[in-house]
């Protein structure tokens, strides 16, 4: 048995914890560079704002309907997510944090009324952290995810599902008739793993609701569609096919890419950006105890502008696999210098570390004069540990490579985040103020 705990309109809910004046107002949170809406309050949904709606298309609603738009504040969301997840973990013996606002909890061996227990955890998260969430329970992960959708929909739009399924929904305790009517009221596209394309194919083929899908024979599904869809059907029928993934595999590649706040023309600006991105990527590689073999760097202009277009990438192999910020930045900047062409308005750059392997395995080699010895490499590892410790303790970017340049207005490539709220929980200077 699984539960899926999912924060409602998570980013907006995080903002409301420290700005209660946002309660009851239509609020959206915008993606990086204030591009499009990535979270919407229920009031914003009621205004007809779709997920991913571009900011310029909904901007007029700030005047006409009092819409409040905020830049994404990931420092805040990450911290509140952490707190929410640690409370959600109390629901059962095992947990898989699936995304910033969702976690699966394994309920095997949990005794007592699961719905009552879930309501307790739900109100605890609401009281202790301030985030409202929905909890779905089912005998498989796909059913738990579906139950979560039902729990949230029953709360937000009463009438579609029975009221008692609002906030916490346990599909495994419904009678067969009740389950059938709930499945009948749910479109097939709401099922975990069924994307827009497959959902359209299914609908065109007369399979419109979850109930239609559950009735299908898994063998037929495999022959007509795919093994993946077959697995989904089996999961909906109550056969566990997807287990709890509590220790995710280390990533095979690590990327750090960003669109710029303003177009960048000069090599110096790009060098700063590429230095910063490769430093971030190197830090991520060290965190998962890997070494990178190759560094890929790319730059490109904006396809949305009518300016001359340019886009190019290059892979620079490292002398030996490394997680050293210095070595990785050096390779990335050398690559950048090779692909940079003057006269273009660059809109995006990125660094990707490839050919990752565990840092516990180091290939011995003969020391041919040039380059650093293995002893130097050990020294570098200590330097990097010091760098990460300092940045973790005193804040991101406290210590960095000089070619990353200085913060501030001079940095044209920095992200546009004109509407970001303070980092209330992670920065002493940003602490919220209460008046007497």
């Amino acid at each position, binding site marked *: 048995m699984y539960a899926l705990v999912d924060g409602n309109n998570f980013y907006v809910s995080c903002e409301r914890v420290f700005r209660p004046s946002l309660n009851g107002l239509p609020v959206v949170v915008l993606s990086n560079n204030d591009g499009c809406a990535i979270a919407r309050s229920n009031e914003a949904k009621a205004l007809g704002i779709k997920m991913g709606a571009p900011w310029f298309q909904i901007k007029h609603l700030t005047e006409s309907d009092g819409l409040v738009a905020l830049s994404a504040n990931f420092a805040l969301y990450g911290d509140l997510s952490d707190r929410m997840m640690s409370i959600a973990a109390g629901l059962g013996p095992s947990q898989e944090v699936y995304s910033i606002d969702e976690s699966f909890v394994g309920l095997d061996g949990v005794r007592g009324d699961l719905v009552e227990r879930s309501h307790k955890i739900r109100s605890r998260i609401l009281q202790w952290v301030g985030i409202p969430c929905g909890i779905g329970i089912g005998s498989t992960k796909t059913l738990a995810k579906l139950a979560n959708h039902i729990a949230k929909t029953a709360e937000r739009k009463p009438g579609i599902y029975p009221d008692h399924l609002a906030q916490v929904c346990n599909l495994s305790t419904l009678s067969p008739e009740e389950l059938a009517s709930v499945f009948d009221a749910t479109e097939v596209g709401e099922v975990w793993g069924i994307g827009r394309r497959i959902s359209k194919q299914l609908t065109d083929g007369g399979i419109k609701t979850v109930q239609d899908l559950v009735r299908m024979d898994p063998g037929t599904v495999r022959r007509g569609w795919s093994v993946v869809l077959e697995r989904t059907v089996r999961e909906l029928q109550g056969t566990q096919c997807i287990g709890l993934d509590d220790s995710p595999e280390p990533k095979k590649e690590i990327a750090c890419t960003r669109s710029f706040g303003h177009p960048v023309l000069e090599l110096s600006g790009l060098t700063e950006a590429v230095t910063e991105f490769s430093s971030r990527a190197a830090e991520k590689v060290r965190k998962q105890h890997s070494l990178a073999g190759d560094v890929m760097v790319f730059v490109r202009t904006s396809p949305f502008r009518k300016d001359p277009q340019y886009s190019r990438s290059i892979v620079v192999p490292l002398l030996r696999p490394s997680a050293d910020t210095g070595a990785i930045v050096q390779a990335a900047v050398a690559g950048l210098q090779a692909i940079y062409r003057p006269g273009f308005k660059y809109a995006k750059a990125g660094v990707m570390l490839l050919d990752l392997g565990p840092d516990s395995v180091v290939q011995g080699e003969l020391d041919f004069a040039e380059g650093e010895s293995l002893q130097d490499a050990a020294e570098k590892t200590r330097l990097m540990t010091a760098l990460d410790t300092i940045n973790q303790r005193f804040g991101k970017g406290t210590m960095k490579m000089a070619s990353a340049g200085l913060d501030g207005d001079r940095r044209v490539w920095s992200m546009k985040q004109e509407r970001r709220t303070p980092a209330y929980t992670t920065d002493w200077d940003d602490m919220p103020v209460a008046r*007497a």
Partner: protein
Amino acid sequence: MTEAGIFDNDIMVIDRAIRPRHNHIVVAVIDGEFTVKQLYQRAGRMKLKAANPTYPDILPKDGQTIEIWGVVTSTIKQFVA
């Protein structure tokens, strides 16, 4: 809140996991703003008292709810601004 020992620029430690009780110093949300008050909860009546007697008490009006955001458990004094 000087009578409760809380001065300007003090840093308050707030615990949201504590159930607010009579006489607790709490952070409440009034008109969307955070405010520090002492909770008065007796005989089914509830109000927020300012420690400074020149400030009026806050009583919930009909149908209005006072949201207690968290309970102040301690403060950290700032000797150098």
